[in-house]
């Protein structure tokens, strides 16, 4: 287990490193303002609100919504609109790590993943999330990130709304909404029922982190859905050899509660590699697709 501990510490250091590197504008927290540099045209590989005061990159989920909800976006692709082309660029960047190794950014880069990893360390009763709930995030992606922002246009001549940001995202509420609202003190921001709703959602989801393994990643995260689906065709996948003794240790250490021995190609796997280090018989490994080995699942 010392091997696993060392690996976990290394992963934590990488996660914290990315957290620091993508949140260089610390002055934002003092000023109650956000960073406006040109680096914000690039997405962070993770769920991190671009309105978080210190964030120097943009949120991929927010950016996708903002483009597909822009006025007259429908049909924009066919006419070669500049923003539609930018969406293709954005999707290319976002999908790149997923085609290499699925949800790997969830394990090493995503700040919201780190928060969940850390909060699950708090001693508490454990709640297992049913595997069927994983479907929720695909609905989030299709409905709240793509369909509703694209189709719902209640205000004439205007674009749609980023519905995932607006009614769901607890990362936005906790890392942008709360600090900015606190800083403003209700002076210029009109905090209405929507703020109440989002705060309640964020509070519930944050509380859930203590009891379940990465529940947001598994049930609600649209980015996880996108990466998970793309990861089905990723270059580097997981491999479990016949040496497996079905001890279940891999599931115990897995941050997303996968039984890797039963579903080595799971779309949920965040490629953190903890099961590799936990396995008492070294049956689990990364399997780069270019390497010839036993033809196996």
């Amino acid at each position, binding site marked *: 287990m010392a091997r696993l501990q060392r690996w976990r510490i290394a992963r934590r250091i990488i996660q914290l490193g990315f957290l620091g590197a993508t949140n260089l504008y610390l002055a934002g927290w003092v000023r109650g303002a956000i960073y406006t540099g040109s680096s914000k045209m690039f997405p962070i590989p993770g769920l991190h609100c671009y309105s978080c005061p210190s964030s120097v990159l*943009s949120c991929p989920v927010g*950016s996708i919504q903002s*483009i597909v909800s822009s006025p007259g976006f429908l049909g924009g692709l066919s006419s070669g609109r500049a923003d539609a082309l930018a969406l293709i660029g954005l999707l290319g960047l976002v*999908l790149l790590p997923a085609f290499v190794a699925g949800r790997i950014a969830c394990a090493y880069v995503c700040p919201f993943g780190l928060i969940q990893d850390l909060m699950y360390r708090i001693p508490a009763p454990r709640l297992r999330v049913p595997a069927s709930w994983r479907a929720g995030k695909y609905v989030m992606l299709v409905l709240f990130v793509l369909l509703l922002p694209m189709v719902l246009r209640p205000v004439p001549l205007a674009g749609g709304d980023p519905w995932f940001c*607006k009614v769901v995202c607890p990362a936005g*509420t906790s890392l*942008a909404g709360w600090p900015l609202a606190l800083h403003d003190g209700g002076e210029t*921001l009109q*905090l209405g029922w929507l703020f109440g709703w989002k705060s309640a959602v964020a509070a519930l989801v944050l509380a859930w982190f203590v009891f379940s393994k990465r529940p947001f990643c598994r049930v609600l995260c649209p980015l996880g859905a996108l990466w998970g689906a793309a990861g089905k065709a990723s270059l580097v996948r997981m491999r479990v050899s016949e040496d497996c003794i079905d001890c279940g240790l891999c599931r115990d250490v897995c941050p997303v509660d996968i039984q890797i021995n039963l579903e080595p190609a799971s779309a949920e796997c965040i490629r953190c590699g903890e099961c590799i280090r936990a396995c008492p018989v070294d049956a689990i490994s990364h399997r780069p697709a270019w390497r010839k080995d036993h033809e196996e699942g």
Partner: protein
Amino acid sequence: MTKRALLPMVLIAAAAAAALAGYLLGDPWVIWRKAASVCLECIGVG
């Protein structure tokens, strides 16, 4: 190189090409524009 690596390789190349083409030919400032002004929707205000 195995046959199994072909699809991921093609996808990686396609994603990289899309990223390059999109950022060079498109208008990536639309991404910046939203990201560089406080997203009132994200806060639950807008």
